[in-house]
């Protein structure tokens, strides 16, 4: 499996990271090195093996479906790059 410049561009887009056109070939080549390394996994016979989902068999804890926290608008917005009138502000999303 070889990653070309177009695939690198598509992955960068999916990851929402801006990569300039002239940086794409180097990125594709790094991807290829890493994917070449992980390609070894295809040697392993995994027939009938269940994917590992947790480290120790334990059932996730459950709690009552009740409000446990809230009314912290100021704290929630405190670190926002742009907060206005009690909301996070972002560039226009819909035309």
């Amino acid at each position: 499996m070889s990653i070309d410049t177009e695939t690198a561009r598509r992955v960068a887009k999916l990851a929402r990271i801006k990569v300039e056109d002239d940086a794409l070939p180097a990125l594709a080549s790094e991807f290829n090195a890493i994917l070449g390394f992980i390609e070894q996994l295809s040697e392993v016979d995994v027939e009938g093996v269940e994917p590992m989902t947790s480290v120790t068999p334990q059932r996730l804890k459950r709690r009552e479906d009740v409000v446990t926290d809230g009314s912290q608008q100021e704290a929630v917005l405190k670190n926002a790059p742009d907060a206005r009138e009690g909301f996070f502000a972002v560039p226009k999303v819909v035309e």
Partner: protein
Amino acid sequence: MSDLTKLTIAQARDAMRKGETTSAEITSACLSAIEGADALGAFVHNTPDIATKQAKASDARIKAGDAPAMCGIPLGIKDLFCTKGVPSQAASGILDGFKPEYESTVTSQLFDAGAVMLGKLNMDEFAMGSSNETSVYGNAVNPWRRGNDDTALTPGGSSGGSASAVAADLCLAATGTDTGGSIRQPAAFVGITGLKPTYGRVSRWGIVAFASSLDQAGPMTKDVRDAAIMLQAMCGHDPKDSTSADLPVPDFEAALTGDIKGKTIGIPKEYRMDGMPEEIEKLWADGTTMLKDAGAKIVDISLPHTKYALPAYYVIAPAEASSNLARYDGVRFGHRAQLAQGDGITEMYEKTRAEGFGAEVQRRVMVGTYVLSAGFYDAYYNRARKVRALIKRDFDEVFADGVDAILTPATPSAAFGLGEMADADPIQMYLNDVFTVTVNLAGLPGISVPAGLDKQGLPLGLQLIGRPWEEADLLNTAYALEQAAGFVAKPSKWW
């Protein structure tokens, strides 16, 4: 008392209880040591006001006579831990200016026990790295040097600042986190003890997430006893972390008898790598002899899927990172890029993340995105999870056969020079974690203990891997190894 910064936690605790010194004195000595150690790049946000206030309160508690073991002990805190009102940015530009409105469970527990925070410690960005060279703050530097050669060496990573600070006696101990070896490899590179507990032993709540199924916090200390004391204060069930284990916590320090007679120690043949330096081979053989002489039974074991641990890790960890790091979008916290006329929300995301994330983080997020993308999910991600199950099964089988702990080298080499790996491809750097990464994949406890010096005078560590939840037994085996190895060397001060 002289050399207060050189005290272990146990020594400081006992001296403070006897009234021979105070937390205020030890804290002040550490703050002075930190001020003179900028060249190490270990501390990146100093909190002397908080430290002084906490030390005073702890001295009052000690005087009142009800103080827990960590009371008054000055610590460094890895930048990955959210600390209320104090910059916590995972050594990333994307969290520039972030001051959490909350306290991580680990730091809360440590502060409740009376521990003192001296400041935040350098690390690889988002804990992604093995040399502390991906930090937005610049490199952390190893206090050790190769003899008289003044080449700056890496303290390892990702907990490089923690390792450097503890080895240089800037603090009595430090918190670290370990996703693929990030506590144990730096501990080995600087000649200190580093413990990664069983996955779920320590709460992950309030620790900036890298790969949630692998991340685990642990102590980085001057010796094994201190690791036991500090783990006690850090661990325990936390309802805020759904993967935190609701299991009883034993008294770890009380387990340190040094008696390992009748214990079975496994030596895995797959860890004998081609091209392994002779000194590492010898260290491993010496460690085996030490445990045998202490009365343990040594057995050869096989962990057949070891070879596939790193490739599986480099699917699973980036996949989880790509998901966890999706939250850094310039909306709720940290950096937001300046936008050009007409830029919409997608441009904001893309520019913010390109500016805020360093090269290694971008690379891993994109690899993770790729292995999770339509058409590759089964071929890469699900296959890696199945291989992970096989790696865990390898360990389950040797433990079922009666092995109590497994002895391996901690790292494939001693500390290397900063910048030496700059031209190597990323895989070369990843190989640093070859002996440690299996432990994260299987969720086991692992500890790195300093065991000797190489011919250039640099520390080397051995790793012990224990059964799940049996940190007490593991610490005791480590204690026996520590006593036999008698490692007491310290770096000569040049900073």
